[in-house]
């Protein structure tokens, strides 16, 4: 127990003094996950909006697959991107394996289905209400998608936050394609896994506390976005 309290104190010290390693790891994690979420949002909005509006054969199957991929295990996403980027893989020539770019790609694979499926659901719900009105106004499919995305903006923000929560907390995908290389591809989650197994509980705890704070902040943002939407009757 004394060890634990000791480690906890050291951990707080690392955070308060903005320990260089800790900040470096935090910034890389944020850079990777934020970039991945931005890319996944653009893809997810487009895919989700199109799936809600455009009728084509196999639409139901694509929607179902997209929803199922929301539960894609991060290690499987990592494995998939690893095979893609490894020297023998189709994108091997790019030499991206064990770089932050590889980690971004893996998280895009992981997060796009989440944002895409939630976007599709939000747009479909809105379309049920708007369909006749928009057709009466003569909206083209593209205009309809744009309208639905904008009117579903509060739900889309929620989807993006959910995607970010997933990306920042996952360890399997970034571990496989990033390799947890010190000063290069070490993120909060991979560092926690490594430092814990090495017995360096203080750094692991410090990173864990930071990660927990981010998770709480994301959740608080979610709640306030939903409250704002309700207040404006935009929910």
């Amino acid at each position, binding site marked *: 127990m004394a060890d634990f309290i000791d480690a906890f104190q050291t951990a707080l010290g690392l955070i308060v003094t903005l320990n260089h390693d800790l900040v470096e790891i935090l910034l890389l994690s944020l850079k990777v996950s934020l970039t991945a979420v931005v890319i996944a949002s653009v893809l997810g909005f487009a895919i989700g909006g199109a799936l809600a509006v455009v009728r084509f054969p196999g639409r139901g199957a694509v929607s179902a697959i997209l929803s199922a991929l929301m539960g894609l295990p991060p290690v499987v996403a990592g494995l998939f991107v690893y095979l893609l980027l490894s020297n023998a893989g189709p994108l091997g020539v790019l030499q991206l394996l064990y770089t932050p770019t590889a980690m971004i790609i893996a998280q895009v694979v992981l997060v796009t289905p989440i944002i895409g499926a939630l976007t599709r659901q939000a747009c479909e719900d809105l379309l049920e209400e708007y369909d*006749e009105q928009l057709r*009466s106004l*003569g909206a083209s499919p593209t205009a309809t998608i744009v309208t639905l995305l904008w009117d*579903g903006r509060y739900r889309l923000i929620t989807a993006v936050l959910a995607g970010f929560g997933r990306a920042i907390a996952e360890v399997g995908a970034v571990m496989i394609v990033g390799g947890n290389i010190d000063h290069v591809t070490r993120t909060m989650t991979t560092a926690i896994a490594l430092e814990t197994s090495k017995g360096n509980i203080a750094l692991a705890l410090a990173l864990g506390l930071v990660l927990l704070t981010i998770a709480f902040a994301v959740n608080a943002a979610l709640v306030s976005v939903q409250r704002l939407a309700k207040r404006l009757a935009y929910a």
Partner: protein
Amino acid sequence: MLDPVAKLQGIGGRTVGLPLPIELKRLTFERGGKRVIDGIDLVIDSNRVTVIMGPNGAGKSVLLRLLHGLIAPTAGRIMWAGRPLDPALTRRQAMVFQRPVLLRRSVAANVSHALGLRGIKGPERSQRVAEALRLAGLEEHAATPARVLSGGEQQRLCLARALSLEPNVLFLDEPTSSLDPASALLIERLLLDAQRRGIKVILVTHDVGQAQRLADDVVFLMHGRAIEHQNAESFFTNPLNESTRAYLRGGLVL
């Protein structure tokens, strides 16, 4: 409110450019094996307010949607001044639904969005938005989220949005059915203004008083058939059909 002389499209009450007459020929619509519209033959040539009445389930809303092209007939056809409904004609139509459909945006943005879909941009767009809000008496609510307006205000906004498109045919599906009498009267005033500006209005209503105040001619629907079509005066004073008489007396129509 509106200057009744402004934007008059015709002279002396006779409007030019309206796609009249509207001819329905053996118009039929089936849904789930049921004939909702059952071979309607009808000619509407009034350039003023045509009211469609009838009991629930008579097919009034479906008929309106067929006229607006939101659904396609199973059989038969509709001719507008001799031509079938095409995109150019649809663009000159607008519709107000029974339940107001408003975007999750401000009052002004709702009108602006509709104008944008018709390709109206720049100063003309903002001018038309301002005009629509003034018409509906909603200027002070321009920046308010549309969906926090009262029911009457929401429906007025829907009507103002439709009118901002400067349609020549306006469809309304029981627009005042859930409004209090004062709100309903405001809508009626806007409709009369619109009609005076040369807009052909086709209105579905259950409200006999409203029909009497607005109608130039009345179509009475039952079981998907148009069982009576008369000018308003004859329709209300001397309905030809027994079911129509019963309906107007407030009796049961089966």
